[in-house]
């Protein structure tokens, strides 16, 4: 493994794994619960999110205000 590869790998690892040791035990349970609730929210967002998003964001052009 070249020095460059090592550095890349090290950076990747740091980014992927760094947060975990920092999370206290109680927070993991909370995170799980939050994730389940989030699924529910995401489904709800699907229901109300504009179906023609591509066309909407392209045509949403305002006159300046103030």
């Amino acid at each position: 493994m070249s020095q460059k590869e090592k550095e890349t790998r090290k950076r990747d690892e740091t980014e992927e794994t760094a947060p975990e040791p920092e999370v206290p035990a109680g927070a993991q349970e909370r995170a799980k619960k939050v994730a389940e609730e989030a699924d529910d929210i995401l489904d709800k967002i699907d229901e109300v999110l504009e179906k023609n998003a591509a066309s909407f964001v392209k045509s949403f052009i305002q006159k300046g205000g103030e």
Partner: protein
Amino acid sequence: MTLPREMALSFSGGGGKGMPSFGRIVGTEVEYGISFGSGTIGDAQGEISHELINRLPGLYASGALWDYEEEDPFLDARGYHVEGDRERPDRRENRWTNRALYNGGRLYVDGAHPEYSAPECTSLRDVVRFERAGDRLVEACLLAWEAEDPGRRTLRVFRNNSDGWGNSWGYHENYLLSRELPFDRIIAGLTAHLVSRTVFCGSGKVGSDRGQGGVSYQLSQRAEFFEVPVGLSTTSRRGIVNTRDEPHSRKEAYRRLHVITGDSNCSEIATALKIGSTLLVLRVLEESHRTGVPLDFPLLADPVAAFHQVSADLSFSRPLALANGKTMTVLGIAERYLENVRLWFSREGMDPEVMDLLERWAGVLRRLGNYRRDPSGLDRELDWAIKRRMIERYRESRRLAENDSRLRMLDLQYHDIRSSTGLFRLLEAKGEVERLLDPMEIEDALVHPPSDTRAFFRGTLLRRFPAEVVAASWSSVVVDDGTPSLKRIPLSDPFRGTQKTVGAIVDRAQSAKQLLEGLLSKGGPTGTSEDMS
């Protein structure tokens, strides 16, 4: 119809003594983005904005006009005969453009956007609830417009500040200050705060309006649109410190600082932090000037570049150049402001609202320092963090590409004011965001003005005597008492006309005519006030 000069009556007493909470007058203005359901609106934007405000249910406003005061040819005795100034609306256009609200605020069309100006408030809680009441009023207009539209079209109204194509509309804060505080002290003391507060009061934005490549998400909707450190214009060459000097009150005593850098927050917490922190910084500036105590606020070398950089830096760690040649991080600057304010108020004493705000402010800065490791907490309080978390969750779970239009749509729709489609409204209903208010407090603010400023007098008169109050403005109420001339009641001091001082007289009066008689018999000095502090 012509008006006499101001009547020789005014209010004695006032809110100056025993002032509640922050003891400063604050008013905020929200401009709304608007489109048809498809996203398009084009040249119809101005017309539809007018139609929208004209659908306001009669529960919230009478037929009163907006009093353009001395400048208005229609309502001014001298101005009525002036011809050729086409800027000034005639009766029909005035009515088409304005609603003087029972809650003391104003709903109108500014340029091509619907705009809500909240009434004057003195407590942070009132500022937040009256601002939210504006959304509800506009939502009521929206539902009425759709119900009555022959073409069965739908509308979208957004409480945001940019369209993603380089166009911005405003969110403005107004702070009443002592005229004694020199403007250069405001510029020197406030600029770095307006830049650094972005970390807690930005609304967040997907991408860039100014084609900044590599910016996938930034803290502020507005930062990119600022080009100079100080300026008068709000529509081009925007300045971080705005120099408009239009106090809507006694010019010799007051200045109304017009702050135009802010985003329209959806989060009540972010709104409170934005207004509260700025108000406290201004109070410390005033007091330090009065007492000659020097302050230790940082001066930025290039405020405009710093504002853009802060907005795009989600690590909060890139150094910002100071005028003294050193550098600080944005969190370092924000903490310096907090420390100065805290030191000042711990010496001078603070009421519970100030204490609570300082605690919240400190907590948010602490969590910002830890945001990359643990975003929880902030993603329930600050708009940019709430929105970012929502977008990231959605993107990951639906496996969307970085450039998927739905990401930008999520951003826009976060600010949609309609309860059934707005994503902030959805998160709020699901208990996903922290709240400051009880929803009933907002309900109350739809029809009842704040009790402790002149907004009480304005709003209460408009509601109690809709047939007799023919016009109102920030600094006047115009009454038709059945005599040949209309009477303009001056509201030149924003601390006067409170429930405490005039509530009983207003309650007793069976007509506006009786009310005028009651006020005249009460007497009192005209236009003077000891309520500055």
